[in-house]
């Protein structure tokens, strides 16, 4: 909830509108995610998926990982230890 979540949501929407369908989210600077933050991530994941694209997460901190685990989103959204690995995953596809 709040400004960061809204900003995140609109940034992804802008990227999608610009035709970017393969998106890496680097969560290195994100210490924690609340229900609205996770909701914005899940919402964007769903939109990208519906648009035929792919969203992956890189460098998620332990707290964020745990939230993604308990909401079972980690089973849907691919997570990588580094940004490089995340980018490489697109190449593999």
């Amino acid at each position, binding site marked *: *909830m*709040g400004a960061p979540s809204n900003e995140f*949501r609109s940034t992804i929407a802008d990227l999608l509108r610009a035709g970017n369908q393969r998106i890496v989210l680097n969560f290195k600077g994100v210490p*924690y995610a*609340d*229900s*609205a933050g*996770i*909701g*914005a991530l*899940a*919402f964007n*994941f*769903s939109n990208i*998926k*519906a648009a035929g694209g792919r969203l992956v997460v890189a460098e998620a901190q*332990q*707290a964020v990982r*745990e*939230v993604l685990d*308990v*909401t*079972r*989103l980690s*089973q*849907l959204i691919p997570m990588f230890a580094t940004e490089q690995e995340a980018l490489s995953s697109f190449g593999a596809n």
Partner: protein
Amino acid sequence: MARDNAPTSTISPVIGLVIAIAVLYFARDLLIPLAFALLLAFLLTPIVKRLEGWKIPRAPASVLVLIFASALVSVVGYFVATQLISIAESLPQYSGKLSAKIQALEGGSNGLRDVLSQLQDMGRQITEKKPERSFPGVEGKNAPASGTPAPIPVEIVEEHSVVQAIRDYAGTLLRPLGTAGLIVVFSIFMLIDRDNLRYRLLRLMGQQKLQATTKAMDDAGQRVSRYVLLQFCVNAGFGTIIAFGLYLIGVQYWLLWGVLGIFLRFLPYIGPVIAGFLPFAVTLAVSDGWRTPLLVVGLFLVTEAIIGNFVEPLLYGVHTGLSAVAILVSAIFWTVVWGPIGLVLATPLTVCITVLGRYTPQLEFLNILLGDEPVLTPSVIFYQRLLALDQQDALNVLENLGKDKPLIQVFDEIVIPALAMAERDRHTGQLDARREEFLVESINEFVTELAEAEAIPITGRQLQNTRVFCIPAHDAADEIAAAMCAHFLTQEGFPAITFPVSDSPGELIRNLGGGPDDVVCISAVPPFSAGNAKKVAKSILEHGNPPHIVAGLWTYAPSGEARTERLRKVLCATVATTLAEAVAQVQEIDRGVATDGPSRAT
């Protein structure tokens, strides 16, 4: 037709008010005893009822109680009168001490002494100078010539006969005696015939208003009786403290001042001043120094300050149902209309008028103006502060209520109703874009701030199995309410996710792997909450393998069980109207109690 009626409906209350005030003023000779009798009846009815309980018939019980009350007043009156006469007789012997004190005061200032001296001289000259008498009809040439002796002034003195003396005294005494007699007669009538009076009043108000009139009469009776009893107790406490304090200080007639304090304090505002001034003036005359009179003043000031500021607001504020301003205004009004007696009757009469306003829709303004009940609910105050673009005040409303209530209740009782009011105004075009944006952003900020302050991190906790998706039905207001719901679900250990408004909520849930193990909580703020929630529920159900659905129709008040059941069927969901209810329903689903959950049943 409506236009014709409009001016009449505006003017009628004003004319009615003017007529009422005129009647109060011109019929005061009759109404004052009547009001006093009513007050006495309120005070004495409980005692009469007690006697009736002891098998004493009502008429003798009423007369007995009234005789006892009159005797008590007479004894106290006789005691006070004799003591006051005794003081008045002894005062001249203390004039020397009083003069000494005044001289001591003057001694500090030569200027003051000079001014006083000049004033005394002037007064002497005026009194010594004999005014020249003019004789109408003897001016000019017919005026007495100089040197002739001045005419002797003649004063006509009426002969004092016994009859004349009786007439003079009777004129002074008969009026108050007559009023007292009227009060006694009215009181007896009211005490004996109270049931008959009540029935007549009920008949007068109309049988269809039986319930409202009965409530009004009970309410007025209880409030006034409680007020009179409480004031008597408070005044008795005041008088006791004063009497004891004066005794300790060593003031003469301490019992008299205490008793006077009890009765004078029935006069709001000026009563304690008069009660304090009398012993101060007497001790000033009697005592040698300044210490005792100043101690007397201090005793009255401290006692009155404690009782007036702490004891009375605590008791009367709750028991009379009048605001402090109403008590002040009523004191002024009744004093203007009925004189000093009006001051004594001000509070009980205003209580009766306020109660009348509470139960009579046409006179509701009286209850709003004079009553002490909050006229706006916290949610309306909160919304109004946001409309005035005053974020800090709005936050204060939330924080003040939050001191006594859990956050979920604050959100349920203030924030969500305010969101609903904003939505309603937005839909009717009464909320401009600037205010709407300010309102949504402010509430969003408050909710985030307050929720974060009490948030328990989801990590490192034993969590529930059920995942909850909080989905807004239509717009930003629904989204804020969804975030609130998610917050409280997270607090209860549910992995909750709040989504933004989605065009295709069913697709969203499907993409996230939502299924029967999950709960979707649809958040819908009025107006059109049921319709919007239905669209979301339909979208989710269309995508197969649906989760349980809880429809949060915030502030919605379905009337009756049948309507709730119909809503449940229409929405294919369990219906919650508060955040607390929604949390409870998710918990119930999680426990597996709701084995025939609505989403499965359809």
